[in-house]
């Protein structure tokens, strides 16, 4: 369940400072548990956010913990879904179904906290 989205993005204009995005490459890992509603929502929400804000400069892995339970310990996952921003530093954990776009962007350091 690995989605690689590195293709050209939709030409949608957003009020996001482009300079920051260009310099940084995002490595994201989304941990879910099976195909629960929350997991599905999270995947959909994340894809949307990434496409809108990080076109072309991110790598997203979606990992199902039911398939690889040992990763829960290694990655210190407690809550599901958890999105981990590995790069760029600092490491960030974003939990929940990512429905609050504003908070996701803050969590990914794309937008500063208000």
């Amino acid at each position, binding site marked *: 369940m690995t989605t690689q989205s590195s293709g050209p993005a939709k030409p949608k204009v957003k009020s996001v400072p482009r300079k920051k995005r260009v310099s940084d490459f995002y490595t994201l890992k989304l941990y879910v548990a099976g195909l*629960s509603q929350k997991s599905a929502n999270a995947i959909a929400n994340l894809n949307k956010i990434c496409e809108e804000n990080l076109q072309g400069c991110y790598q997203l892995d979606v990992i199902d913990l039911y398939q690889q339970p*040992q990763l829960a*310990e290694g990655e210190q996952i407690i*809550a*599901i879904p958890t999105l981990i921003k590995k790069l760029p530093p600092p490491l960030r*954990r974003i939990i929940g179904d990512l*429905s609050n776009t504003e908070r996701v962007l803050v*969590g990914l350091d794309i937008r500063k906290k208000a």
Partner: protein
Amino acid sequence: MIKSRPAPKPKSAPKSRQAAKPKPQLLKASTGIQGLDEITGGGFPKGRPTLVCGGTGCGKTLLAMEFLVRGATEFNEPGVFMAFEETAEDLTENVASLGFDLPDLIAHKKILLDFVYIERDEIEETGEYDLEGLFIRLGAAIDAIGAKRVVLDTVETLFSGLPNPTILRAELRRLFRWLKDKGVTAVITGERGDETLSRQGLEEYVSDCVIVLDHRVSDQTSSRRLRVVKYRGSTHGTNEYPFLIDEDGISVLPVTSLGLDHEASREHISSGVARLDAMLGGKGYYRGSSVLISGTAGTGKSSLAAHFADATCRRGDRVLYFSFEESPDQIMRNMRSIGIDLRPWVKKGLLQIISRRPSFAGLETHLAMKHKLINVFKPQVVIMDPLNSFVIGQNEIEVKSMLIRLVDFLKTRQITGLFTNLAQSGSPVEQTEVAISSVIDTWLLLRDIDTGGERNRCLSILKSRGMAHSNQIREFLLTDQGVVLRDVYVGPEGVLTGSARLTKEAEDKAMLLVRNQEVELRRIELERKRTTLEAQIAMLHAEFAVQEVASLKIIGQETAEEAQLAQGRVDMGQSRKVDAKPNKRKRTSK
């Protein structure tokens, strides 16, 4: 794996319907912790979660860890320790001091440590979430080693690490239910809250067994206590039990719940002073009884205690001597001065002297330590010298309660307890500072009698249950042969002691001499009388002999005369030629 579900059903059913049949007991997972199994009637409920809560530093983590380690080593039940506060390395180091070799157990897949790291700063909440990750993680860990026991320490950390308490509460409820379904015996620790047992009210979810640990400080000394607040489907001790944490882990003392059903021994054991034994019905103290020696300062309480210790060791029994004022070496030196050498017994391992200041720890901790030492050393005699140094401020009631529990404990083990008590010189001697008379079987009272410008030690038996004891007040001396009881001299003002006694002894000696002389005199007089009498008898004998001789002489003369007379007649007849007939007749008739 034992399912927890069926357990409560048969438990509740037969109780009401058929009381005669043996009640099915709730399955329990033995904790292996000394004393805790006794209180809980066998351990924690098997396959159910147990909440252990208490304030900071009261030993929650340790209790949980010991539960796991004992399970893994003694009951072959592997366990998972999920730590939310300490890292695996820290935990391993911390419990190594208690003799738990975690790395070894981990290597043998007996225990699995999992540290859950939660950093609030790294986490951003963006919508609904659940704790499925934790479930998966725990499930994987349980399956990895086939765990039967699980510890979550301290799950409440989640509340500070993760936002949205509502979700957490629901998830925790689900977690505990899930643990139950898994059939693992779980221990969940929780920090004590202001109003509730745990900060997040975990006791609402974990309702099978709740244990509260407490670390209390009173009068600047602290003691740890444990209480089973709730145990669904099982009876349990309800009191607060003191517990200890030492190099062997945790030990809980279930001493408060002892009943009065111990057996009373009929065997006597010597007090170490022969004449004191004679006062105590001729044989000494009862085995397994409690003896109190009370007296003012310097009346020889410790000396009597040492005598008892010495006599016990001489029989080959073991003695545990708790001293609260002197060091072991000081005791041995002092006792040598009165001719009691305790050192060989210490060397032989028959005598163990433990010196601790009462202020070293709280009463409960002291009691717990004693309990433990007694269990390890298994003595036949326990000596505590002196009791009242425990009385600091207004804690007499607690001291009494401690003593009662100690005495009860000793009695159930058939251990003879000897306690000394320093009485205040101002107060009546019969009133000990610690009003403990009710638990004491034999009470010796030592006191100073000051007369004639000197102080003399006296001993009396205030009471001694179950024996015909002497009612006399006896003076005793501390000699280099130990305690020596003297003979009793009762004067007009009571018992004579010291030099008054010596005077009396001298007087008695003089009187005895006079009496002896009189007897001798009488004997001589008698002898004289006998001699006189015998002389008189001899004289009479002599007189008689003389008379006899005289009488015989007369008789002889008369016979001769008669013969002569007869001869004369015959001669005359012959001369007159008379026939002899009439004479012959006469002679025969004669």
